[in-house]
């Protein structure tokens, strides 16, 4: 390999360490780092406790069968999706600028691309192993298997990227589309046929088990078996014995990549520019909505909303975000279409017969799911990081600007949750009208508070909500800290309001209405306080100092 590429790989690791050290110099950075490490330890501690309690062996033995059954299917599905993502031959902008015009051979560049991504693979393996190692007999087997499995997914994606580049060179766009359809259609067709053949009254999960245990699927998934077997290995010889074929598969994939004589630079440049453009939009526009729009950048999306009354400036500020939201409606709907079935699947699967089951888990699922997704629908300050100077220059009180920013996100989440709640209520027929009305009345307050807390944390510790690349360790740490702080704030507010509700309920002769009013009053007070806090944080935001790169 070219010594310059080896130097770059080495310096990549040094650079990450250097970045963390630099961040640690500032108080906020240090706080974030310490917080992230503390949360990481909190996540690891229970796993260590389980492992040393002796329960892990039983647990692992119990899990092995399920992992052997589902593991190959999951690995195949992830690899297939990875292959379709066209990220295979992605290079970062600096790599494009420096390496593409440099006298580096095609194979050297490919090898560099493979090796440079191993850092992300290792990091992902370590991260997932925190949650997955309890299902393995040995923690090192879990880490190794995840590392090898992610490397497999990565290499399949890269090989597919090269093949696509090769195909793109030879085929015109319409032919490429037809070819793409011919690849994807059989997979979808197979899935639909499999679902269609499920006998009536038979459990979906049991049918899937039968299908995955069939000789046909064993043959299809043969290539992924070694990775799964490394994970469930019960002793060192078995672990080593399965690691050998896993490594052979990976080496074979690297060999195939090297053997493919494709001038991939151009395809890679196009893919890298597209990904960069999408990342740029995500970083300045916020959330999944912006990412979706990359498919049709030339199309002018219209659709506007009437301007609401001024309300001390709250109206126009909210209107601006609402129009942006309106124009991203398609992507929001796409996400909703995915989110609602995801919430409903557990209910439908657990129903089994005709008897409706309790909908409480689904209701909680609806609310939690949307709370976790706030980052993806950041129609607030987080979307305006590069427009803070403009917002600060407006002749409006900071609290009015903050309130204006919180309105659209609150409305969006309330509508989303109500849609999901309605679906759950209709599907399960177990949500009473009073419960439905109570939840519907409280949801706007809860959403306002969540958006307010999110924005206050963001304004105090500004950060880009999308990293520049996947292997950004500080970004992962920061996300963990922000999520932790948000959950903490919501837990405290939720706890106080529940106590107030309980008090009112007890004082007013076990009246549910009184309890709900008690909760509502505390939530409303919290919403006002959070808005004031967000306003102050906005006023204190220093555009020069606080805008992250």
């Amino acid at each position, binding site marked *: 390999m070219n010594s*310059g590429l080896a130097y770059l790989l080495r310096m990549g690791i040094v650079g990450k360490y250097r*970045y963390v050290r630099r961040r640690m110099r500032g108080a906020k950075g240090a706080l974030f780092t310490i917080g992230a490490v503390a949360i990481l330890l909190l996540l690891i501690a229970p796993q260590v406790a389980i492992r040393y309690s002796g329960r892990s062996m039983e647990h692992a033995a119990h899990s092995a069968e399920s992992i052997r059954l589902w593991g190959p299917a999951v690995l195949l599905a992830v690899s297939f999706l990875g292959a379709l993502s066209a990220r295979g031959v992605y290079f970062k902008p600096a790599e494009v600028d420096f390496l*593409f015009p440099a006298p580096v051979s095609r194979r050297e560049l490919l090898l560099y691309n493979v090796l440079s991504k191993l850092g992300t693979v290792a990091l992902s393996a370590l991260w997932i192993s925190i949650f997955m190692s309890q299902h393995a007999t040995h923690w090192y087997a879990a880490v190794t298997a995840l590392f090898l499995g992610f490397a497999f997914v990565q290499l399949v994606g890269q090989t597919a990227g090269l093949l696509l580049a090769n195909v793109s060179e030879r085929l015109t766009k319409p032919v490429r589309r037809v070819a793409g359809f011919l690849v994807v259609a059989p997979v979808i067709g197979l899935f639909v046929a499999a679902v269609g053949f499920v006998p009536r009254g038979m459990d979906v999960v049991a049918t899937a088990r039968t299908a995955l245990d069939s000789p046909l699927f064993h043959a299809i998934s043969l290539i992924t078996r070694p990775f799964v077997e490394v994970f469930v290995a019960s002793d060192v010889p078995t672990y080593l014995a399965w690691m050998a074929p896993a490594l052979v598969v990976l080496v074979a994939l690297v060999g195939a990549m090297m053997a493919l004589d494709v001038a991939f*630079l151009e395809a890679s440049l196009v893919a890298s520019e597209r990904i960069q453009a999408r990342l740029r939009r995500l970083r300045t526009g916020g959330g999944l909505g912006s990412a979706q729009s990359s498919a049709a950048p030339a199309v002018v999306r219209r659709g506007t909303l009437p301007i609401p009354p001024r309300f001390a400036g709250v109206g126009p500020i909210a209107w601006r975000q609402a129009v942006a939201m309106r124009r991203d409606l398609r992507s929001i709907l796409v996400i909703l279409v995915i989110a609602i079935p995801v919430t409903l699947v557990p209910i439908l699967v657990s129903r089994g017969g005709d008897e409706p089951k309790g909908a409480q888990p689904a209701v909680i699922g609806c609310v939690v799911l949307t709370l976790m997704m706030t980052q993806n629908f950041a129609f607030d300050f987080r979307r305006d990081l590069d427009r803070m100077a403009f917002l600060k220059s407006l002749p409006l009180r900071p609290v009015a600007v903050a309130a204006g920013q919180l309105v659209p996100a609150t409305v969006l989440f309330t509508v989303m949750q109500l849609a999901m709640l309605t679906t759950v209520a209709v599907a399960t027929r177990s949500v009473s009208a009073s419960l439905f009305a109570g939840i519907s009345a409280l949801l706007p307050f809860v959403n306002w508070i969540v958006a307010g807390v999110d924005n206050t944390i963001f304004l105090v510790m500004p950060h880009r909500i999308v990293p520049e690349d996947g292997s950004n360790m500080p970004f992962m740490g920061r996300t963990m800290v922000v999520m932790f702080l948000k959950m903490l704030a919501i837990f405290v507010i939720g706890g106080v309001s529940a106590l107030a509700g309980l008090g009112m309920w007890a004082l007013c002769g076990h009246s549910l209405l009184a309890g709900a009013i008690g909760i509502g009053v505390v939530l409303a007070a919290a919403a006002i306080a959070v808005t004031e806090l967000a306003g102050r944080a906005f006023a204190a935001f220093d555009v020069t100092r606080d805008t992250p790169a």
Partner: protein
Amino acid sequence: MKPRPPDRLAASSGFICGECDATGMVLRSTRCVRAVAAATTGPSFSLAHAAEGRHNRAVMDPANPDLPSSAPDAVVRVEHFGKAYDKRLAVDDLSFSVKGGEILGLVGPNGAGKTTTLRALAGILQPSSGSLSIDGFDVAKQPLEAKRRLAMVPDEPHLFASLTVWEHLEFTAQVYQVAGFESRGTRLLEELELLDRRDTVADELSRGMRQKTALACALLHEPKALLMDEPLTGLDPRGIRTLYTTLRRRAESGAAVVLSTHLLGQIEGLCTTFLILRAGRGLFCGTMAQIRAQLPALSETASLEDVFFQATEGSVPHEPAR
């Protein structure tokens, strides 16, 4: 200016173009633009045709002895280069060459094909037709040899965020196998006024400094061809002056420089030759005097900006009265 051969001047009077059937004058084959311009039959017709690009090859015809592309000692040579993206033609039948010591200004409106041409010269894009070579090495067939002799500075230089300025040079030296780069690197940092930023990580550099770092890396292996896409963007006046000095110095030492820009006023005094592109087609190529001579509607003192508008739009827009 060199007088034109009479056969070309004769090519203009009341016939039909052999290539495009345009009426009004003879436009003999590929020479119509020059012929029409030279015959002073009025620029609007000829320029309109040139802009349509149906037969503008004459301007850059390599068979033509007084055109830059035919120079035998050319470092950068582009012959009938075409680049298509699916149905869209980004560059069409472009030919030009740049000798060592020349600084070629690649100018044209957005979408003219400047960046595509530079990227193809750097071996990043594969040409759909034609050939490009650096110092005699075909970029598509002998990419490593060609790339050893060139350097490219893109319009928005992306550096490795966590590497220092010096580490960028160290990395470049290893990629290009530059022996004893330390003294040359230090000299370059001094020349580009970056010495005090030697140990600053790229993340903490201003845009102008990032640009200069990218330039320092590009110059480290003393390339024979220096390709620069919009090099002036983001530089302060001092930075621009430094860049001028650096580029002139490189050209004087025998390098061929190709730079694209929209800042016409800034490069007029820097570039020795210009190539005006529009919609992927070369309209004019030559020194200012040569291009001016092809545009009779312009005076001898017309600026590059006037030449640009006349060439690409057929007339020079009037400045609003103050």
